[in-house]
């Protein structure tokens, strides 16, 4: 598959502090890529470098084969983006805002503007001043603006920020549609695992300016999922489970083991009952954001 965005060993030092410590990854056509990390991990800083707002201290970025530093206009033409909040001109209407940005792109027709407005479902309010928009509407207008130039790579920094549950679901479906039908590459950053889990194909987990892992969502979750056994007496159960699967430890009244398939769990259950252990619940839990981070980063705090 075609690679649309390639990042090679990008670093950024601000003052004396190294904020991004060497990132490398590449994104393919039609893929939704998630950027997951706690506050201050460097997601926004990375995105700013990808769209040319700040210069990397070292490293290279290629968009559709064009070097972002050397062939800025050619490279950036293939990128649509929202960095942090969707800030538009509050004293212009939504439509005027779109016209404003259309004038900065080579040949965008009125029909194209109409198209993106309908795509984000803002037809009813598009001629009102942006000042009167809700955050969700601004977010949509921001997306419309990003899609205006028919980009190949769409970069969204926390796109569901400020949306209600329905809006979040719509946004997720919207992003999936763009990737699947229009074959866009979408890069989204977030600190919500649930969100990334539902819409991304691959995820990079960032912490303190480094990518700790890049993997498909399935892999990551499988690896981090756990089975919780509420059993009595615990010491006997533990002995039995150890023979069948890997016991990770005890938490409150639970025994924690790795994620297992249905057959293994059923077999374990049968063994436990045979041995006279009372089993009150067996639960498989996907990791929460907290667990995942604590696991992967060793419980870092923002500094």
């Amino acid at each position, binding site marked *: 598959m075609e690679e649309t965005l390639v990042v090679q060993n990008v670093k950024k030092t601000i003052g004396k502090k190294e904020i991004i410590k060497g990132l490398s990854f590449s994104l393919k056509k039609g893929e939704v890529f998630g950027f997951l990390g706690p506050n201050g991990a460097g997601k926004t800083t990375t995105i*700013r470098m990808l*769209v*040319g*707002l*700040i*210069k990397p201290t070292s490293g290279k970025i290629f968009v559709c084969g064009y070097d972002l530093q050397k062939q*800025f*206009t*050619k490279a*950036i*033409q293939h*990128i649509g*983006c929202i*960095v*942090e*909040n969707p*800030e*538009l*001109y*509050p*004293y*212009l209407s939504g439509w*005027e805002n779109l016209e*404003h*940005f259309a*004038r*900065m*792109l*080579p040949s965008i027709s009125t029909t194209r503007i109409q198209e993106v407005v309908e795509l984000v479902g803002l037809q009813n309010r598009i001629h009102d001043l942006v000042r009167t928009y809700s955050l969700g509407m601004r977010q949509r207008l921001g997306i419309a*603006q990003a899609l205006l*130039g028919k980009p190949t790579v769409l970069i969204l920094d926390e796109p569901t920020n400020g949306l209600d549950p329905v809006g979040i679901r719509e946004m997720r479906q919207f992003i999936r549609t763009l990737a699947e039908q229009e074959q866009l590459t979408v890069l989204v950053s977030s600190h919500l695992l649930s969100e990334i889990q539902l819409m991304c194909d691959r995820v990079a987990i960032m912490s303190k300016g480094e990518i700790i892992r890049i993997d498909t969502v399935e892999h990551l979750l499988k690896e981090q999922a756990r089975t919780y056994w509420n059993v009595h007496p615990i010491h006997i159960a533990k002995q039995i489970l150890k023979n069948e699967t890997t016991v990770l430890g005890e938490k409150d009244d639970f025994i924690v083991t790795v994620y297992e398939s249905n057959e293994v769990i059923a077999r374990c259950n049968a063994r436990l009952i045979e041995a006279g252990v009372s089993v009150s619940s067996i639960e498989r839990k996907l990791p929460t954001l907290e667990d995942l981070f604590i696991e992967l980063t060793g419980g870092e705090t923002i500094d």
Partner: protein
Amino acid sequence: MINLVYNEMLKIVRKKRLFIIAAIVAVLVSLFTYAQFKQVETIRERIGTTDWRTQLQQQIIDTQNRLNSTGISEEWKKFLKIRLQQQQYYLDNDINPMAPGAPTFMRMFIENSIELFLPLLVMVIAADLVSSEASGGTIKLLLTRPVKRWKILMSKYIAMILSTSFIVFSVAVLSYAISGIVFGYGGWNLPLLTGFSIQGEELNTTGVHLIPQWKYLLIEFGLAFFVSLVVGTLTFMLSVLLRSTAAVMGIMLAALISGAILSSMVSSWESAKYLFMVNLRLTSYVSGMAPPIDGMTLSFSMTVLAIWALVALIISFYVFTKRDVY
């Protein structure tokens, strides 16, 4: 590029900046017109309305007498002759030199606003051209278009020049239109004295000659436009450097006001003449008033201003194209 400039002008217009400025000018002009009208009325009460012709005739006779007296220098003689020519014109054309027409009011207005009022108006526009995009976050959208950064800044600079032209133009039109209601619209051809130069304590009158008022006005408005551009460019630079429009305005305001104060007290601090803010009163050179510091001439002041503007422009473009945007 035209598209970019169109965008910038659209934003300025939609922020209603130009409209507010035109309104301020209109209010101020009306105010000054009224003040001027009152002043003319008091003078008229003092010397009577019909009297001005006889008074002017008396003045002409005085000048002639002085011309004929012995022991005056060639230079002085020449100056008196020009004076005589001017007075004769007033008399022949039935013009009361004490009662201004609208063009005379325009002249006074621009001479008094070139140092502070006009620069302030220009500052209001130029101060938030770039800083408002930075503080509003919209700069991120501007700089992620397939347009080079210097082009974006250039479009903003052109928009600044266009707005400055609009301001100077509206000052001219409004001061003419509004004051004309009271003073009448005539007086374009009134001959005025110019070409004085001041050397030390002496008024040098060798270069003095008469020019019609419309030419005089053209020169003065040209100089006012130049001053506005310089102030606009300096404000523009601050607007690039600072995120906060209020800070930009504060610094410019301090500079302009300190200029007005300094002008009246720096005669012994010679190197102050390289500061841009004491060089703003370019119209004084035309009307022959003493400059704040010895040795300042029109071309000196214009060079100083031009250098300040050029440096500001270079800094603006360098910083804007190079810097990281957060």
